[in-house]
């Protein structure tokens, strides 16, 4: 049919047909995935009944009967959630005891952290830019939140809440990876001294609980240091998190490096490429790719381990929330607080996991 005739065709209304089609495909999807045979039909019905039974009361408790505003504890009801303290102490949960007039610094820090996501998720971004951002982010966060230069210096005692969780988690994640690369390479070094230092370090750190190191760093280190010399407490805690986590990552990476064919090194060497360039351009990109699932696992674990610092007296998000519900007025409302904590951690850890999935999709694409 000539092109000019196409425009003369009667125009049929398409919308209803489209709805029919999507309804039909939904029915088809359900038949295929939910009601394929007797067993799956039974399971579908069973699970559906449980959901019907549990979800309405849960929603009722969380939202419909819940109290969102009011004056003090007497506004709460006994058989539904009471979100009043969450809103009332929102700023404490987010900023901890950070001075109110300096809170903009925390906001900028959060923004820098969020900015990492579009950078990480973009496929067109040059790798060097992403690496530079990851390398500078910890420094920027430290200068911004801790102060220095024209920014007022903040004592470590004003760090708390979600901001402390974010501060510890982000810096530890960014810095533990490069340390672990060096450890993994050192453990395979041809120089016996370097190899043995790395082996002993990794084996020692893995065999001692993180909590022990946190206690040592926050309590015992002062005893050993010469009088008058003091290392900032946050710095000590951060160092522990970075160096402990790096030992685990080093073993992940060592496995990934050893799994690469020896020919990858040889092909690079044969072109006159030196050791470090071979590592940087040929070996590490492949080793990191192959260890994405395990590394993401480790990153998520590390982020959740930031909650352990409350044992040595730093109140991050969980510690702050627990502290608020120690107030006589709000005692007994821990469940609401823990729901907020769980939700916050879920969002952050799920985002990290999604980044891992994103990386794996990219890698998959280059394999076919």
């Amino acid at each position, binding site marked *: 049919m000539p092109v000019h005739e196409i425009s003369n065709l009667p125009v049929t209304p398409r919308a209803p047909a489209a709805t029919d089609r999507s309804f039909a495909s939904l029915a088809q999807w359900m038949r295929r995935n939910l009601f394929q045979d007797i067993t799956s039909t039974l399971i579908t019905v069973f699970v559906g009944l449980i959901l019907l039974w549990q979800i309405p009361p849960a929603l009722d408790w969380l939202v419909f009967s819940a109290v969102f505003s009011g004056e003090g504890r007497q506004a709460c009801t006994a058989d539904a959630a009471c979100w009043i303290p969450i809103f009332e102490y929102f700023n404490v949960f987010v900023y901890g005891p950070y001075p109110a007039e300096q809170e903009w610094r925390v906001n900028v820090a959060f923004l820098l952290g969020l900015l990492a996501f579009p950078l990480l998720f973009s496929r067109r971004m040059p790798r060097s830019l992403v690496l530079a951002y990851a390398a500078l982010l910890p420094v920027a966060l430290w200068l911004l939140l801790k102060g220095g230069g024209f920014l007022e210096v903040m004592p470590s005692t004003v760090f708390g809440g979600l901001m402390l969780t974010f501060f510890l988690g982000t810096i530890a994640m960014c810095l533990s990876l490069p340390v672990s690369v060096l450890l993994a390479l050192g453990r395979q070094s041809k120089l016996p001294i370097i190899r043995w230092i790395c082996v002993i370090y990794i084996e020692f750190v893995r065999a001692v609980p993180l909590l022990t190191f946190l206690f040592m760093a926050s309590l015992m280190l002062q005893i050993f240091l010469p009088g008058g010399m003091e290392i900032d407490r946050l710095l000590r805690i951060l160092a522990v998190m970075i160096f402990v986590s790096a030992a685990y990552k080093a073993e992940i990476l060592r496995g990934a490096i050893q799994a690469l*064919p020896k*020919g*990858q090194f*040889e*092909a*690079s*060497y*044969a*072109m*006159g*490429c*030196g050791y470090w*360039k071979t590592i940087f*351009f*040929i070996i590490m*990109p*492949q080793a990191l*790719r192959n260890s994405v699932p395990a590394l993401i696992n480790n990153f998520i674990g590390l982020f959740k381990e930031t909650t352990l610092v409350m044992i040595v007296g730093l109140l991050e998000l969980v510690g702050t929330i627990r502290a608020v519900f120690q107030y006589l007025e709000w005692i007994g409302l821990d469940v609401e607080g823990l729901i907020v904590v769980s939700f916050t951690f879920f969002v952050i850890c799920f985002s990290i996991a999604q980044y891992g999935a994103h990386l794996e999709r990219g890698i998959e694409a*280059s*394999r*076919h």
Partner: protein
Amino acid sequence: MTNPAPIISMTAVNKWYGEYHALRDISLEVAPGEKLVICGPSGSGKSTLIRCINNLEQHNDGDINVDGVLLSEDLKDLEAIRLTVGMVFQQFNLFPHMTVLDNCTFGLRRVLGQSRAKAEKKALDLLDRVQIANQAQKFPGQLSGGQQQRVAIARALTMDPKVMLFDEPTSALDPEMISEVLEVMKELANDGMTMLCVTHEMGFAREVADQIIFMEEGSVIERNDPISFFENPRTDRAKKFLNQILQH
């Protein structure tokens, strides 16, 4: 007849793997432009021999001299030798995380420090020469074995080597892909490249080689021109080897 200075000379080279004597007193000279095919039963030290030339294996004893540079512990000398000598491997050893084009620009950009534009122009010229320029944006895993090996040859050539080492370049290929790689190698030979090939392709050896080296148990036991080697090998061991390999 004047002999030009050899581009590779090995003098009394020995190599041990623990107790195992892999190379025994190898002395060998290769003239510029000469094509050597190294053959022999498996485990005879053929690969070890050529891998010692660019120091992928370290010899224990003796001298290796490449284009006037003595192979030593000195990293400068080592780099100079590796830039003079290109290598093609049995398993291709392309970098799977890089496109074909990036594989070929890697050495130019990261070792020689050339700009991306300049490196890509040269890489595309060489990919064109091995007739694979249209695959430049693909990843190695998306190519056939023969195509990958041709990319590997192009990658080695980007560095303008004076000598090319081939370590069983067709042994990992399906039969129908062997000829496309051998064609590229023949062209390279016709262009006057100095080549050392470890290969079992006796047809290629007969056609291209100036000299054939036969090795057994770490020693060179025969060095001969191809016609004499195939028609009338000097040693019984070479005779037996040829019988076995040419039977099929």
